[in-house]
């Protein structure tokens, strides 16, 4: 199957691969896995005091489209609020990367990872508030 140039670019030069400190109260982690293909994806975001994402890292074990989807969203996430991040739709990712129909599920995985990371940071902030 032919990958689009954008997928190849992210696949060959993935942006923001790695991890952040998961114990940092300002870091949210989203982990998801697609049983359809066995791909696993971890997305970590670091949020400043104003709720703006200042850093994002990912690790994805899966096909080129899954790697490209997660690499792309780490670029998109920086500078956005967590609400804006939560609103990112898989269709935007699929469109940007020109994913073929059989690879749409990779963009769904990336959207789910963002939502999981945002939920995690919100739960951490809530817990911190209650503890204070």
């Amino acid at each position, binding site marked *: 199957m032919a990958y689009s140039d954008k997928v190849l670019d992210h696949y060959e030069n993935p942006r923001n691969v790695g991890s952040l400190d998961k114990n940092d109260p300002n870091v949210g982690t989203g982990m998801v896995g*697609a049983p359809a293909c066995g791909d*696993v994806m971890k997305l970590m975001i670091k949020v400043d005091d104003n709720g703006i994402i200042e850093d994002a890292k990912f690790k994805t*074990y899966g096909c080129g489209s899954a790697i490209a989807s997660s690499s792309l969203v780490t670029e998109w996430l920086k500078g956005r609020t967590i609400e804006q991040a939560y609103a990112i739709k898989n269709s935007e990712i699929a469109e940007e990367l020109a994913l073929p129909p059989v690879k749409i599920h990779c963009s769904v995985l990336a959207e*789910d990872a963002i939502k999981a990371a945002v939920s995690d940071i919100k739960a951490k902030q809530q817990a911190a508030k209650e503890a204070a």
Partner: protein
Amino acid sequence: MSLNYFDLFGLIPTFDIDLTALEANFRKIQSDNHPDRFVTATASEKLTSMQTATLANEAYQTLKSPGLRGSYLLGLSGIIAVDEKNNQMPADFLMQQMEWREAVEDAENARNISALENLLETIASEAKQLQSGLSNQFKQNKLADATDSTRKLIFMDKVRADIIKVIEKLED
């Protein structure tokens, strides 16, 4: 009505199938439908035999793999175990998957085949436990639990297949 994959091989639709019978019946269907036997056949006979061989191959690949077999069996009960829109898995399970993936990556970079083989063994033994649990869940008709186990088994099968690929690549 179309035959399900189990019927095709004369097997009872259950998780604990007789793998030897599966293999033997698959070989028989493939041999009965081999193109060599249809050299002088009509176009429609050729087409039918080709379709049967293709279906048998797909059915065999599905039933041979415990994860895919579980998923197919659940499908016969109307349960979609593998839905592309459902990517939620237990956090500890995904954490373990990540750790294995990272260990594979490290071992690949270090060209450490014995580390990969050890990893393969660990994962195979975990998969075996999961599989025996799944077998019981099917027997007790606990289909929600069976769905969870089936989803996990598919990941296990994938990581094992990927490790085998890495080992083959390193041995080349």
